[in-house]
């Protein structure tokens, strides 16, 4: 059995990073003409965004409700239950909504993107496009990448709103926190900086997750095993990259 040497591992990682970087540049070049095809773009925003709505809304609701329960329990110890709105809003806007949306996006839309493009590769559809002098980067990859990039902040915003209502449902309706205090404190404490933090994070996660998903699909081995492997790599790489970027961006914003 061959042992994986550390230098091989490092070189492999660097090669992969280089490949993704070159792919990103190629994609960005093709994004300009792709923007001129609104039909394709809207279809991909629908695929990546609208089709993820149910899972995002359900998750947002439950995360918000858990936040309401845990937050209320913690704040009650200090006699500050009224601050529940602030805690939930800031936690959701700055951290939970972008991160959890990105993780769910990687699992739902990311895997769909990778397997779709990978299967197009395996069934010669991408090659057929190339022979018809249609660049698959422009026709297939760029609209899907942009669709994911646009969908992520929208899904994050929806997650935040539903999550906040979930926290309010538990805090106000079940635990008895005053409704007026909950919303007024939330309104007073949340400023544009917090919204921007969530927006920047969701854009960064959208870029990373869409790029990884499209890259993995586009470069998948044209076999059933190759597509399965690429799909797995999409989830793993997107999740790790989301958490890594989250740390970096949190450090930048603090």
């Amino acid at each position, binding site marked *: 059995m061959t042992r994986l040497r550390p230098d091989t591992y490092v070189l492999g990682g660097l090669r992969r990073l280089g490949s993704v970087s070159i792919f990103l540049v190629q994609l960005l070049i093709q994004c300009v003409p792709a923007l001129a095809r609104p039909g394709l773009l809207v279809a991909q925003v629908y695929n990546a965004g609208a089709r993820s709505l149910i899972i995002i809304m359900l998750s947002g609701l439950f995360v918000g409700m858990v936040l309401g329960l845990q937050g209320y329990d913690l704040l009650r110890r200090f006699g500050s239950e009224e601050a529940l709105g602030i805690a939930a809003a800031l936690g959701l806007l700055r951290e939970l909504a972008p991160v959890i949306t990105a993780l769910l996006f990687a699992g739902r839309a990311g895997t769909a993107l990778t397997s779709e493009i990978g299967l*197009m590769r395996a069934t*010669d*559809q991408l090659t057929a496009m*190339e*022979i*018809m*002098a*249609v*660049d698959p980067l422009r*026709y297939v990859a760029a609209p899907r990448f942009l669709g994911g990039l646009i969908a992520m902040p929208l899904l994050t915003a929806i997650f935040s709103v539903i999550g906040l209502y979930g926290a309010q449902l538990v805090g106000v309706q079940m635990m008895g926190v005053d409704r007026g205090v909950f919303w007024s404190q939330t309104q007073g404490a949340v400023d544009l900086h917090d919204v921007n933090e969530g927006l920047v994070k969701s854009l960064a996660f959208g870029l990373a997750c869409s790029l990884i998903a499209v890259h993995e699909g586009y470069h998948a081995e044209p076999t059933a095993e190759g597509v399965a492997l690429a799909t797995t790599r999409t989830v793993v790489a997107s999740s790790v990259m989301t958490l890594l970027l989250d740390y970096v961006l949190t450090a930048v914003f603090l």
Partner: protein
Amino acid sequence: MSSTGSRHATSAAPAGDVVVAVRDVHYVAGGRPIFAGLDLEVRRGRITAIMGPSGTGKTTLLRLVTRQIAPARGQVTVFGEDLSGLGRSEVYALRRRMGMLFQNGALLTDMDVFENVAFPVREHTDLPEPLVRLLVLTKLQAVGLRGAAQLMPGELSGGMARRVALARAIVMDPEILLYDEPFVGLDPISLGFILRLIKHMNQALGITSVVVSHDVQELATIADDSYLISEGRVAAAGTPAELKASDSAAVRQFMTGGADGPVPFHYPAPDYATQLLEADER
């Protein structure tokens, strides 16, 4: 090389008539040499058959001609242009003059049959919708699938998918059509139909055709020129009749489908009996 192969089927062709020229091409895939000095020519307005046993690189040759891959050595010219010196946009411009029929059809699965055939038209022209419709329906009628225009690729049989792919390949009226194993898995009616269609497009529209296949009998009925590829180079070239009359044992074996002969049927392996006995001992 056989006596038939000692000269090219195209040797008498004027240079301007050569649409595809492959010169001394070497190509290696996965450490295995596929081509070792391949030379062949495709002449304008003719049907050229590329034959050979499985695994001899017939499909690889089409990939070289369409510049999906580049040879390790040698030169491939299409319409007089050396492919190695072309940039991406120039390759795409060249491909717009070609059509290719894939072995599996390679239809776009998120579009119906009509949209698949209309795809190259929509991508490369600004024709008004009524004209696109007319063009697509004409091509679908030519392959006998006008009634299937609204079906999705998943609802088609293998043969039907290949016919839709053929309609898509000819919708832009290419100068050269490349067929990758067009007869595999077709029922006798579709097979006869595809054969007649290839011949008709060649005679009526003057489309140069390159047909890659190992169906010797079918090819013999339509091909003007034939190349038999074996062990990385042209083993024989000529008209199908010349190939059939060849005195080369290898050519005769391929043309008649004989299992015994210089072309091995079995992949290299240790002695059969020894290996079976070894398995018993274990």
